[in-house]
């Protein structure tokens, strides 16, 4: 059996047009095509033969002597089949060269991607969040609060009396969650506007703006219950872990897709993270409505404060703007682009859930 190609001797880029021939007993001869002189005489088992990838040239190389390059892939495969069956018919090449396996892979990758985003990542993130030591969570929360204070917050301008009044109103609900170490604080929100935040260690921050926006302390209680819901379900830690898993997995799978493609890949990752965030909001809302029912507070308080928030300008920052005046179609699309569900959806879910009690 013969192959034609190029011979490159060890040590330089010198190229000779050459013929490679191998006999049935495995003796190999490489000869110069022009002069007919023998370049290499060896046995087949001494050669390292590169795997087949698409139709790229194959290299048959002999340690310290040189390498023979040929485009005759089928010829190389035929020789391998006869003299080195173990390396012939490489499984990888068979899988890579048939459309049926490619299409199967497309289906498999899409199905896996869907499962991984919807079930896999949240489940694993949940395990990790449960396994994280408490002191890590609390020091992480402290540092984050420090950072928020530095970047956005100012000291609260609410009077001492107002703060005491609200804390007193919250006391019962907090006492019901004594295991969580819930601590409510007030800050001036500035750019963050009317908002409330829960840190994983149980610190819950109300901005002055949301306190001023509320029409009754029960509305604030509904918000508190929502934020406690985030703490109970460990949403903060879970969303961080989910984000990391998702980015790392995408990078590993599509890592060498090229610069332009890579920047496009961040879009689905971001959309998925938004979807996780919206799920968490619904979960926290559900928790809030349960707590309101347990404590015999009218669930309409939550509805009221949601309405006020969506009328308030700060809703733009918190993605809680209502769809009162806007075209419904637009909002459907925008839903996918926000971390919080549309307020009307939240109110509807909330009311449905409250009626179930």
């Amino acid at each position: 059996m013969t192959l034609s190609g190029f011979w490159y001797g060890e040590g330089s880029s010198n190229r000779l047009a050459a013929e490679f021939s191998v006999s049935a007993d495995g003796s190999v001869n490489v000869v110069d095509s022009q002069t007919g002189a023998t370049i290499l005489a060896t046995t087949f088992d001494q050669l390292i033969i590169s795997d087949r990838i698409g139709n790229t040239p194959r290299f048959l190389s002999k340690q310290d002597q040189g390498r023979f390059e040929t485009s005759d892939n089928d010829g190389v495969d035929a020789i391998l089949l006869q003299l080195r069956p173990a390396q012939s018919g490489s499984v990888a090449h068979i899988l890579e060269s048939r459309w049926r396996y490619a299409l199967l892979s497309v289906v498999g990758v899409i199905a896996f991607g869907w499962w991984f985003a919807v079930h896999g990542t949240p489940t694993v993130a949940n395990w990790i969040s449960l396994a994280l030591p408490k002191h890590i969570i609390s020091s992480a929360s402290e540092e984050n609060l420090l950072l928020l204070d530095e970047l956005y917050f100012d000291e609260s301008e609410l009077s001492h009396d107002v703060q005491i009044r609200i804390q007193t109103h919250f006391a019962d609900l907090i006492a019901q969650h004594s295991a969580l170490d819930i601590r409510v604080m007030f800050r001036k929100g500035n750019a963050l506007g009317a908002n409330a935040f829960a840190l994983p260690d149980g610190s819950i921050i109300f901005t002055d703006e949301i306190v001023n926006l509320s029409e009754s302390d029960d509305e604030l209680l509904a918000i508190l219950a929502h934020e406690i819901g985030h703490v109970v379900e460990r949403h903060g830690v879970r969303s961080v872990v989910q984000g990391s898993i998702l980015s790392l997995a995408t990078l590993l799978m599509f890592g060498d897709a090229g610069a332009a493609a890579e920047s496009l890949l961040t879009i689905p990752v971001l959309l998925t993270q938004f979807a996780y965030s919206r799920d968490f909001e619904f979960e926290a809302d559900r928790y809030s409505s349960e707590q309101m029912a347990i404590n015999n507070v009218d669930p309409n308080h939550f509805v009221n404060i949601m309405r006020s928030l969506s009328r308030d300008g700060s809703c733009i920052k918190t993605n809680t703007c209502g769809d009162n005046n806007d075209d419904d179609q637009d909002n459907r699309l925008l839903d996918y682009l926000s971390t919080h569900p549309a307020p009307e959806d939240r109110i509807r879910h909330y009311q449905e859930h409250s009626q179930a009690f």
Partner: protein
Amino acid sequence: MTDLRYDIVFNGQIREGFSVDEAARALSKRTAGSEERIRKALTKQHHVFKHDVAEGDTDRYVQQLFAAGVIVDAVLVTESTTSPTDLSSSSADGSGGISDTKDDSGPRDQPQKMYFQFHGNGAEYFKIWIVNICLSIVTLGIYSAWAKVRNKRYFYGNTTLDGSSFEYLASPITILKGRIVAIIVFGSYAAVNHFYPIVGSVLALAFMILMPWVMVRSFAFNAFYSAYRGVRFRFNGTYGGALAAFVGYPILAAFTLGLLAPLAYKKQVYFFAGNHEFGQSRFEVDASTRDFFIAFITGFCASLVAALVAWIIGWVIGVAGLLAALTFYLCTFVFFAVLLTNLVFNNLTLALNQFTGEYELKSYAVLFITNTLGVICTLGLFIPFAKVRAAKYKAEHTGFIAGTNMDEFIAARQESSRAMGEELAEVFDWDFGI
């Protein structure tokens, strides 16, 4: 012999079949210099294109100008024992060879221009790509190291120059080890960053100091496992050089609000390309800082003008901001890719061999837009086709003027390299390369 210096002199001779306008256009594209200025020079009967060129470099200038249709002489200027000689016999005369006074061993008789070629095919690569992703998933990521090698080998093997293909020689096991280290480092860095943002910022500083080391390792690994005609590439950059080029100068550029960005970019190109070797032959970049500034300013201003036009058009239909932003993004990407690639390749040499960069604005813009739209519309399934199209474009628009015999590159002595740097770099998504 070594201290002989030459001027590259033009005596009003244009090659047959070329016009002054054509030559000026070609030269301005190659050098990113002003076409008007070059045309003026070419209309003179006597013009010195370059003063004080070392003997080893004269051929390169003569060949490059010859390729653009301009005939020049290398004229000896330095005082030496021999009287100044007019080397016009060695200059291009439109029909014969240009370096026939040299001894036979080094330069070849006639420089030969060729192009890189890419033989891959989108459909073929699609199968390889998707099957490898699927196998990586099934094996919980372990196969991803094999997948990486196979993907890389597909692109190397399908790229040829002068009929010989490139080889990627890294072993998947080495890459797997590097990948495991990288994931541990990346994972703990991400965790610290999320949970301890303040400690994280200190770590970020540590990473900034570590990064140049990772880059040097990464370049060295990649070069060592890349070969052509059985000869490996090498990378000899130092940590200090990388620190200056990839941390020092970018910081300087940031402090000057980006004004010095072209300088930083130049330093990076010089560091990356200038420290590469093919066997024992060095790559060398020789483009002036001025050229980099011109390319950046041209790219930026052209994009700004395009965005302004888009804004005016968009204002009529009521989508001004969006249209202007998209145009600006697209134009900067295309202009910078085309201008800078051409600038670097047109000034890149390997011994007496000259590269040429021949990207064109229009065709590159078409490629970029269609690839981007393709990837978006197919939710990523077009990625393998886009990669093949990009590789084909890159190969076919990169020329190589062989000034030496292609058979005479000598391999360097063997040394090994580690995968760790390379894989760290990959996980952190640093994408370099020209």
